């Protein structure tokens, strides 16, 4: 007898449909799996056999052949266990095959017959819905997450026995509901905790308002990391679709949790490899930049990252996705993220009373930083340790993240409205042409910029960056026209020239 069951395998952050077919035939008892299974999949024969026998079900003493289609795609992991077991049951007449028609299953089995949780349940649920399945059976732990996919009945079941009962309709199963998203954690870092540092806070607000990449420069201990950690709190909360994207990636990476209500903040250590940063591996896994999708990637000690790692970041930052090619397969990971970086002003750490680094040492340090990555940075701010008065004082100086976030949201709405019909969704994403169309200067403001370009203090690319920034600054002020003050402020945040001698 022959039976087939639909399941899904993870590929990058997406799920690919896999059809499991089992053929039961008379002959010497054997169980063969074909269709490019890896070791974990081949081992699932043992799990399936034991799980069925320990659940007072029959494991047919016949010749079993299982095929995982499409046969040319490599299958990895234990998430095919459940589909194999149910398919064996259907092929041996222990469950009615017609009940499996609009149903997909996904889960790992224990030897005792319990269903264990898997990674990427949300990706599986979304793929199952899009492939037209009406019902998805998943491990009970994954059910609330899978239920985030609307338009699909998700059943979270804890053992193979229960699944058989449900398929026989001997027992009713309640469809799972998405868990209510947790409200913001009370301990989330707030901008109000940062004393002093008005300049860095302003830079952070501008960066958040236009999704501009930001570089903070300052000596160790000045508070760069502390400030950086507060950026998710002033970014607009993710929309439902964005939250689904974030959650799906988290789930695939095995980070779990319910629907994401905050944007991710990833701060990889500077020893990370290029692969760890943009994704990869024999079985490609998402890198930090993908885990930071729709959120913030924070690179502390930027100059300490390997050249290869920084170089690898360029394409994803430019395109909003990371393309990984390994062997014959090529995968695309989403990577729409805001880059936040921090570094010391010079190799000695930037002692406040005159640095003692030789010109060659500084030049070497700057060379490490400059190049592809700095081209993507719109905004540079200097962070110095706050004076003792600010640290010791009792009053809290800062505005709370909530009120800054309101301004950011208003500014983003203006941008969304203006950029309708263009590929960019915020000022930071505008290319050269879009920038020049939407960041029109008039009168004195033009004059101001012409002066600076004439002095040779601004290159063509730098010019676009200043325009983008001035656009965001005007948006924050609720102005459609960009005035001279906006241009001046944008000029103040631009990057000085690197690579040549300081003079």
């Amino acid at each position, binding site marked *: 007898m022959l039976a087939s069951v639909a399941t899904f395998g993870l590929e990058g952050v997406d799920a690919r449909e896999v059809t499991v077919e089992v053929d039961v035939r008379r002959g010497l008892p054997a169980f063969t799996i074909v269709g490019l299974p890896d070791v974990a999949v081949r081992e699932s024969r043992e799990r399936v056999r034991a799980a069925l026998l320990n659940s007072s079900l029959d494991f047919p003493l016949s010749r079993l052949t299982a095929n995982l289609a499409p046969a040319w795609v490599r299958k990895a992991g234990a998430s095919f266990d459940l589909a194999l077991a149910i398919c064996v049951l259907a092929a041996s007449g222990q469950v009615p095959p017609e009940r499996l028609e609009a149903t997909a299953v996904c889960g790992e089995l224990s030897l005792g017959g319990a269903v264990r949780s898997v990674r990427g349940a949300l990706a599986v649920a979304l793929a199952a819905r899009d492939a037209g399945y009406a019902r998805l059976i998943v491990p009970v732990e994954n059910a609330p997450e899978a239920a985030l996919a609307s338009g699909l009945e998700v059943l979270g079941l804890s053992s193979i026995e229960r699944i058989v009962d449900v398929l026989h309709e001997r027992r009713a199963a309640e469809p799972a509901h998405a868990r209510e998203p947790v409200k913001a954690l009370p301990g989330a870092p707030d901008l109000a905790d940062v004393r002093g540092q008005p300049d860095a806070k302003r830079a952070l607000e501008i960066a958040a308002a236009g999704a501009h990449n930001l570089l903070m420069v300052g000596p160790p201990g000045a508070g760069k990391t502390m400030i950086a950690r507060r950026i998710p709190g002033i970014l607009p909360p993710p929309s439902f679709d964005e939250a689904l994207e974030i959650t799906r990636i988290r789930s695939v990476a095995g980070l779990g949790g319910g629907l994401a209500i905050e944007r991710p903040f990833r701060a990889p250590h500077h020893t990370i490899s290029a692969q760890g940063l943009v994704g990869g591996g024999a079985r490609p896994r998402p890198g930090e930049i993908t885990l930071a999708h729709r959120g913030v990637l924070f690179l502390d000690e930027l100059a300490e990252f390997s050249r290869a790692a920084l170089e690898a970041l360029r394409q994803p930052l430019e395109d909003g996705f990371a393309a990984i090619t390994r062997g014959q397969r090529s995968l695309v990971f989403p990577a729409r993220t805001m880059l936040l970086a921090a570094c010391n002003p*010079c190799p000695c750490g930037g002692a406040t009373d005159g640095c003692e680094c030789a010109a060659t040492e500084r030049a070497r340090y*700057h060379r490490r930083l400059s190049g592809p990555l700095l081209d993507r940075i719109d905004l540079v701010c200097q962070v110095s340790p706050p004076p003792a008065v600010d640290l010791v004082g009792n009053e809290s100086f800062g505005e709370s993240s909530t009120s800054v976030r309101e301004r950011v949201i208003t500014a983003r709405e203006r941008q969304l409205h203006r950029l309708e019909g263009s590929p960019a969704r915020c000022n930071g994403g505008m290319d050269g042409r879009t920038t020049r169309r939407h960041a029109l200067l008039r009168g004195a403001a033009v004059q101001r910029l012409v002066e600076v370009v004439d002095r040779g203090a601004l290159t063509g690319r730098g010019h676009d960056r200043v325009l983008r920034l001035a656009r965001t600054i005007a948006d924050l002020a609720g102005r459609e026209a960009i005035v001279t003050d906006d241009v*001046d402020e944008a000029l103040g945040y631009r990057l000085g020239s690197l690579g040549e001698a300081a003079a």
Partner: protein
Amino acid sequence: MTEACDTCLRRGYLIGRLAAPIARLLDRPGRRAPGLLALGDDPLVSAVAGENAGEVRAFIEAFDPDGAREHLESLSLGAVCRHAAGYPAPLLALGDPPSALFLAGGASPLARLTAEPAVALVGTRNPSPYGLEMAYELGRGLGAAGVTVVSGLALGIDAAAHRGCVDAGGTAVAVLAGGPDVPYPRTNRRLYGRIRASGAVVSELPPGQRAYRWAFPARNRIMAGLAAVTVVVEAADPSGSLITSVFAADLGRTVAAVPGRVTSRFSAGSNRLLKDGALMVTSARDLLDELFGPGLDARGAGRGDDAGLGAGPGPTLDPLEQGALDALEAGLGIDGVCAHAGLPAREARALLARLESSGHLRRDGLGGYRRTAAIR
């Protein structure tokens, strides 16, 4: 623009022909031969050419001065010999003045040195930010006051001094250790182009010649010879730039130095010069006072002391701007500017950008603001 007699021109090319043999002889640690270039053609050949002497003598015999002049012309280069009117007279004070100077750029910057004093700014190739800043500001101040700045186009102090001078629209003279058409080091080739366009690049060696090690001290003697004052901006101890100051002292010219931090390894050499009685220089003004008399300019007229010494933004600072500058100078950073001027951050950044435009501030590598030295 070639103004060189046949004999001197031949001597110039002879040194080019002998550059490699001399290098075989001298380019080892500890080897020096101070009087070598003072030798006449024949003794020089005998001293360095060894078994190739015959070949070199044949080269001298076959030398074609008109062909050489045409060749220079075709490269848009020139030459002046010590018998020509365009040869800078101060150089003749050397015991072994170069017979011919090969030249890229204008001939007049060189000719002017006969009547007008020049200042040589020299220093380490690996300076501190402070040294770079001082070199740039001295170069700029001198350039703006119309004083020719002589240096060696090396990395670090030399380049910063040249750059300051050219930025101020002044006349820069670069003395190279290789041919005048070979920008060395390559890093400074853009600067080389700017100097060639507005000033002059000179060398004792003929076109196309690479720079050998022995040629650097020889070049230093030319810098010291051209200038009335040699300023060591920043030098460790020992340092190649101190050699230039020794040449200057031997010529009886003024040796000056910029004071550095006592604890800094970068300033040991220049501070030692000061201890030995060198003129202390803290701004271009000190050099103008030394050259022309206190408070006077190149024409002997009184100079309004702040005019012309820098980008000269004029005394139009309002209290807010002054406060911002003071806060930055006190090392309080941009947050300090906000606090002291009572400004919100967004206005502080705009204010600083305006002050940068007016020349009161400049950017440091990673974008921090620094006060410019000249306008104090």
